[in-house]
């Protein structure tokens, strides 16, 4: 099987904390990898390094077999949905404008309507992005990430502060993207149940990688599950 991502001995040291310590794992084509870990575990830092936003890391990150320090071409194959998409509240961009920003080739403009339809936001296409609910905005950013037919989708914990109905719709969309369109997905989450239902691979991260393997293997290991559900629960309570 072709490996999409190979991470070897990744270490990230911020001035005050070591956010990632010697993390190594591989993601294969077609994987749906759920990354779980409490707040501050280094999930966003891992993504920032993978996406070329944080370059002061030690170790190697390879996409499609190539070191990302050598070429940024791999970014063309990736769709990324950030944890909290930040923009000016009254930014004069409609849903259509935002999705179009992601579009590399103007000739693919007919893809926009198709994707808006697929994500149930076509009726909102003329609305300003700032007027939508959290769940709707999230779907717009997924649409933007998908509009170039990426081979890999990276989603950073995208369900915080979103209603249950939107979350369910979001999960069914992810499942379809992975199973029908064969898009490889890397997704960080606090929700163990959702990871259990959706992902076929699991990585447990808390500065170092505690576990990486098949989802079944993880959920059969009661000790590990208990530890991680407690860890994420605690952090969740802190959060609220």
């Amino acid at each position, binding site marked *: 099987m072709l490996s999409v991502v190979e991470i070897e001995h990744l270490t990230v040291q911020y001035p005050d904390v070591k956010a990632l310590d010697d993390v190594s794992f591989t993601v294969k084509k077609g994987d749906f990898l759920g990354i779980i870990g409490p707040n501050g575990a280094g999930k966003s830092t891992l993504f920032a390094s993978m996406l070329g936003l944080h370059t002061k890391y030690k170790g190697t990150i390879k996409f499609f077999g190539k070191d990302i320090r050598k070429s940024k071409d791999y*970014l063309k194959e990736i769709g990324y949905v950030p944890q909290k998409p930040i923009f000016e509240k009254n930014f004069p961009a409609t849903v259509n404008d935002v999705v179009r920003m992601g*579009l590399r080739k103007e000739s693919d403009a007919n893809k926009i309507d198709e994707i808006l339809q697929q994500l149930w936001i076509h009726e909102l296409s003329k609305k300003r992005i700032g007027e939508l609910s959290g769940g709707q905005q999230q779907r717009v950013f997924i649409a933007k990430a998908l509009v170039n037919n990426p081979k890999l989708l990276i989603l950073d914990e995208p369900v915080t502060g979103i209603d249950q109905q939107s979350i369910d719709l979001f999960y069914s969309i992810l499942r379809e993207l992975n199973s029908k369109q064969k898009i490889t997905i890397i997704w960080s989450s606090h929700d163990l149940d959702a990871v259990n239902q959706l992902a076929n691979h699991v990585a447990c991260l808390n500065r170092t990688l505690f576990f990486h393997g098949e989802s079944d293997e993880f959920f059969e290991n009661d000790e590990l599950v208990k530890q991680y559900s407690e860890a994420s629960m605690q952090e969740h309570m802190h959060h609220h």
Partner: protein
Amino acid sequence: MSLEILTFSFMHRALISGVAIAILCSVIGLFLVLRRYSLFGDAIAHSSFGGIALGLMAGVYPLWTAYGVSIVSALIITKIKEKYDISGDAAIAVLLSSGIAVGLVIVGISGGFTIDIFSFLFGSILLVSVNETILILSLTGIILIVVLLLYRQLLYSTFNEEQAKVSGIPVEKINYLIVFMAGLTVVTSIQLVGVLLISALFVIPNVTAIMYGKGFKTTAILSISFSIFSVVTGILISYVFDITPAGTIVLLSIGLFGGTMGIKSMGLLSKN
């Protein structure tokens, strides 16, 4: 009002360059406003004072030195801002005051000038020459072409830098390009409204247009229309009543801003 004024060739030049500058300031200003960089135009305008003083001292056409000094100092301050993580408003304050300071010192060293400082401060659109009109039109053309060609890159990196980077857009280069174009635009526009009112043209039509709740292109078109309306009407009214064009133009655009707020508070601009 007599239509006779429309036959004067100085009036033709004033209106043509006025419209060009209106379009230019709206377009570049929209990106600056959305980047929370509204006062950047003001800062560049102030730093051009240093440039003009330098030109006068060196015996060079002051607008050329103004271009040089404003653009170079704007690029340097952008570099410093990025490197040392200084906030946008602080960077603007530094640029603004250093331009004036340099200008004052040069004026002091050369024992004071007898230039028409008034036209520099408040503009002199009715005095633009044929050559200046050609310069204004060419710069407007070039900048608009660049904006159209790099439309997605400019918009995306303004919307969210991080996501634009992940999409492979060279965000840093785009930032410098915007600063460079803003520098060109400001110095070019000094002739119309002068240093003191430049940021009005950058900001007011854009904040007015943004209130209409439309998408990016419609917002840009609205802003350009408001701007052209204020400039053309302002030039004509000011000539007829013999008042300052710069002040009239800015007051008209403030009028449109106030009118829009009025319409909006009456609920006529519903959110779709």
